[in-house]
């Protein structure tokens, strides 16, 4: 992975961008969500607490009123007397009183008056006054022993039909001697609870009322479905956490003072799975967007950075190939621009240095030749060769005469001081050379020269054709009987073309490749080519030079291009 990234500048940039873009995004995203969640939960909790207070107030209000009414009933002699009354008129009077006292509360509870033995005597419930509560047991027993207060208990089944009955309250009626005359009993059914709570809480929430042992007294539908009471009691008994992470519902517990009851409110959690997954989804989309942005930015940025470097690399390769004319000429003003300018300056400098070196070398050569000329008088050599010629003629050895006159001509031209000679001179030099070679190789090849008259006076560097012809004879026609060399010179668009054709074995492809690359080191044995090429380029510039190729019908063709310069 690391290796793959390190290989490309683009990938490195991309990785950097991802880190820079994604890390802050994820951190801020998480932070935002957590802050939001905390804030929401707090608001939510406050709201729930308000709701619980409202429910609690309503219920304690009802309980307080109940206690008041119970006290009024206890102190009403008509009712108390009515407990043991069998006379229907007096009983009726007691009933009237009971209904009068309880008229405000009959919507939310049934009131009964029991006698001391636990038999129901008067009742506001729609059913006939009947039923019994054991006086030695349960709520009546507690009410008897705690006569100063209203006792509230979860209703259970003993003694009566329990349909929908949730909560029971009882208070003992005592006379002056603390003798029990009976009990005021208040029954609250599910319907009563619904009436009390209606509008006090949000219908989506579940409300449960638990007794002091956390047994279910009353549960709304939602609380029943969620089994709030049972779950909480089981957890409390087992000593587990009351709120657990796996809960589908969050709940709030509040004890209701004095009554011994507990109020539970169950709520769907504010941060449901939906909300959480949506938040994560949004974050993912943002992450993907910034990822795409990173890819685009990395591409653009790396191109912007690597393009000048690549340009520089290409220019460098050309310089390595010997082309010192290269100039980058970047229009940029930044560090890359400066680098390009320095590069351009550097190649210019190198070229100048090279030219200087060349000039010095040439001067040195000139002085060498001058020294040689000084040491050995050329005229002595010419005269000697001339003498050889005449002696050969006198003795009828024409080959020797040709050899001596040819050699003399070559010698004269090559050691003459002039750098440039006319094309006709150059061609006659080449002819002399070929005549000598013909004798050397026993007349195994022939040659033709095509030189238009108007080009005879063109000036060319001396000895530029001879190396090419030498190559054609020595390499091209090596294995060949009756080879032919054709020297064709013509002009086209102000350029002088000198072409050397041979019908030999052609040139090796690798040599041709090396010639194209102008690789001096590898061109051993063909160094003449390289020298000719270099001389022309140095004199006339890189648009001129030497080009070699093989002909389709066999043999090689070497073409020299030069500007036309006339004296």
């Amino acid at each position: 992975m690391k290796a793959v990234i390190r290989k490309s500048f683009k990938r490195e940039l991309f990785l950097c961008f991802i880190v820079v873009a994604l890390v802050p995004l994820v951190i801020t995203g998480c932070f935002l969500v957590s802050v939001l969640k905390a804030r929401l939960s707090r608001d939510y909790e406050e709201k729930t607490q308000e709701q619980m207070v409202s429910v609690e107030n309503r219920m304690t209000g009802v309980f307080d009123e109940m206690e008041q009414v119970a006290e009024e009933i206890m102190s009403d002699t008509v009712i108390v007397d009515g407990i043991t009354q069998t006379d229907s008129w007096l009983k009726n009077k007691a009933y009237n009183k009971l209904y009068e006292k309880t008229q405000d509360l009959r919507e939310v509870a049934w009131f009964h008056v029991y006698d001391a033995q636990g038999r129901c005597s008067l009742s506001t419930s729609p059913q006939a006054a009947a039923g019994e509560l054991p006086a030695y047991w349960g709520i009546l027993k507690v009410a008897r022993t705690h006569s100063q207060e209203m006792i509230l208990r979860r209703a259970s089944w003993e003694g009566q039909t329990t349909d929908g009955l949730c909560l029971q309250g009882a208070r003992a009626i005592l006379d002056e001697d603390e003798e029990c005359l009976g009990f005021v009993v208040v029954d609250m059914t599910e319907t009563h609870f619904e009436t009390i709570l209606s509008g006090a809480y949000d219908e989506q929430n579940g409300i449960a009322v638990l007794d002091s042992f956390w047994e279910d007294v009353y549960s709304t539908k939602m609380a029943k479905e969620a089994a709030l009471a049972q779950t909480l009691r089981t957890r409390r008994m087992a000593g587990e956490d009351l709120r657990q992470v796996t809960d589908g519902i969050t709940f709030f517990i509040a004890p209701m003072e004095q009554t011994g009851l507990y109020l539970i409110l169950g709520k769907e959690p504010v941060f449901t799975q939906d909300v959480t997954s949506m938040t994560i989804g949004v974050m993912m989309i943002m992450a993907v967007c910034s990822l795409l942005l990173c890819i685009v930015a990395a591409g653009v940025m790396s191109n912007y950075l690597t393009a000048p470097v690549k340009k520089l690399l290409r220019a460098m390769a050309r310089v390595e190939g010997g082309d010192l004319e290269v100039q980058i000429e970047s229009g940029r003003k930044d560090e890359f621009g400066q680098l390009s300018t320095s590069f351009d300056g550097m190649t210019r400098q190198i070229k100048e240095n090279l030219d200087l070196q060349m000039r010095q070398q040439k001067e040195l050569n000139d002085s060498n030749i001058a020294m040689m000329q000084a040491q050995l008088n050329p005229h002595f050599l010419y005269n000697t060769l001339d003498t050889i010629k005449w002696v050969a003629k006198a003795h009828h050895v024409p080959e020797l005469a040709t050899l001596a006159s040819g050699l003399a001509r070559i010698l004269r031209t090559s050691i003459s001081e002039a750098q440039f000679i006319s094309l006709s001179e150059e061609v006659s030099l080449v002819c002399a050379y070929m005549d000598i070679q013909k004798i050397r190789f026993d007349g195994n090849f022939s040659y033709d020269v095509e030189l238009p008259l108007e080009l005879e006076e063109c000036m060319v560097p001396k000895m530029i054709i001879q190396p090419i012809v030498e190559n054609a004879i020595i390499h091209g026609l090596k294995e060949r009987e009756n080879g032919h060399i054709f020297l064709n010179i013509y002009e086209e668009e102000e350029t002088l073309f000198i072409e050397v054709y041979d019908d030999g074995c052609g040139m090796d492809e690798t040599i041709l490749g090396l010639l194209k690359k102008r690789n001096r080191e590898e061109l051993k044995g063909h160094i003449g080519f390289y020298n000719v090429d270099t001389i022309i380029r140095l004199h006339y510039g890189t648009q001129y030079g030497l080009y070699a190729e093989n002909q389709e019908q066999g043999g090689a063709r070497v073409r020299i291009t030069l500007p036309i310069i006339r004296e």
Partner: protein
Amino acid sequence: MKKRMLRAAACLLSPLLILGGCTDGQAQEEYRLEENNKLVIYTSHKEEVYGPIVKEFEERTGIWVEVVTGGTNDLLERIEEEDGKGSGDVMFGGGVDSLNAYRDCFDPYISSQGEQLNDAYASADGVYTVFSKLPIVIVYNKKLVISAGTPRSWRDLINSHWKGNIAFADPDRSGSSYTALLAMIQILSEDMSKEEVMDAFVANLDGDLLSGSGEVLQEVTAGKKLIGITLEETVLKEIDQNADIGMIYPREGTASVPDGTALIKNAPHRENAELFIEFTVSEDVQRLLEDQLYRRSVRKGAEDAEFKEVHYDLDYSEQYREEILAEWRALTKQ
């Protein structure tokens, strides 16, 4: 490198952790229950029996009770499996013979109210404390049998007059049926051997056996059978629901199936368990049994005038159980 990556991951994840748990330890602390304020009861009683008793116990003592319900045998097997390492404190319910059979699972406890209790079924070494008595009675359909013609005694049940008309559960499956069969053998043992009694009775049943004691009343109220043999408790309850049936205590007397309460070995809340056992035999609870739960008190002074109580020989019952049931199976297969 790895460490650095881990650290980076931790930095990234830390906000997520904040998102997680918000627990309020305060509420947790406020509502923590002390261990000595708890009691775990295993019971095979129906909710109508244990419900009011457990509620009253909680309210009087302030102890929180967890109730685990199940069949008698299931619970006893569970207690045996737990072998003193379970959470249960008290086994509430189950015939005393069953409790006696699992005596190794219980710690002996002798009630401080032993003096006031009827000692007929008391456990000598305190394996269990008797809770209630359930006498066996004959039930009949009032519409189909005139009261003058009802069977009056155990001997009447082998009278061919009732042949094919008796609803009786298989003693192999129903504990109360087995007790009834044994009571019959015991009562008729003066002039009949147990084989003769069984032979005659099986012949009178005419091959009809019910699979559970609950079905006896169904058969009688539906008029499929004229009379039946079952527990007083169930008959009284049915009569209270206005069923048109009558109940007869056999003239020779009848046996009661007593059930009891036992203290489980190594009970985690032993003190509370003892309190509960005392509570079950207290005057109030025993009174409630008779008043509301159609059961017979085990306290002295609550002796029953309506019927003669025949002592049910627990040792005999245990000793001959397999033999009698094998005989019964052989007879009913024919």
